[in-house]
């Protein structure tokens, strides 16, 4: 019974509680964060975004071409050395 009374008291502890008050500078803090957010968006303009995307694409394409070219050269060299090997054995 005593425990139930204690639990009842615990539930009562929030009754009549006062409302906490936020910082008096809340509005200024909010407006500062809003204007910071807007400045960040202006710094990265759409032109810059597209330009960056184009540069990344070019670099990727060059890498792919270079890898493809080095694979082709390697396979050509393999073919040449294969025929040389055959020639050597035929002699």
């Amino acid at each position, binding site marked *: 019974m005593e*425990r139930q009374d*204690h639990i009842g008291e615990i539930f*009562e502890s929030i009754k009549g509680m*006062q*409302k*906490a008050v*936020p*910082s008096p500078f*809340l509005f200024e803090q909010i407006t500062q964060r809003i204007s910071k957010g807007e400045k960040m968006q202006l710094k990265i303009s759409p032109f810059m975004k597209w330009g960056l995307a184009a540069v990344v694409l070019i670099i990727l394409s060059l890498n792919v071409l270079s890898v493809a070219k080095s694979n082709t050269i390697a396979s050509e060299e393999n073919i040449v050395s294969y025929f040389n090997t055959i020639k050597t054995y035929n002699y």
Partner: protein
Amino acid sequence: MSEASSDISFKEIVDTHKIRVFNTAISFLQNKEDAEDLTQEVFIEVYHSLQRFKGESSISTWIYRITVNKSLDFLRKKNARKRFGFITNLFNKESGEVNFDSGHFDHPGILLERKENARMLFEAIERLPENQKTAFILFHIEELSQKEVGEVMSLSPKAVESLIQRAKTGLRVKLESFYKKRGI
């Protein structure tokens, strides 16, 4: 709307609702600094979304909804971070009881003589499932009606009533185990 008049009306919205938002955030987050931060984020979202607000609900219901969603997101991220950190064994290996230490959250609005009890209650509230926690906080702490809670949570008043009952039952069970551990 001119910039000056829109700034005035946004300030009015902040002034009218800041205490509700802050107190709701405190009840969820149980940390004054986090609640201050979250309050700012709620109003930043309000600022950016005000043009899109269609008035389907009251503005206070809408702001409560943003506050609850942001609070729950914050708690989910906090719990995810905890899982990656060091996890202490919550269970007493011998008896299987939940190891329930009294919380450390002192709500700034609670009277001094009730702080210890309130600490235990908030610790128990923290462990409730999200929907029960939300219903309990909005009804018992924010003192919204069941209808208003339903509007915030997009539930019927009956569903809200059921959630509140389950929350109270859950809280009693948690508080009972706390007393068992203390040998009271």
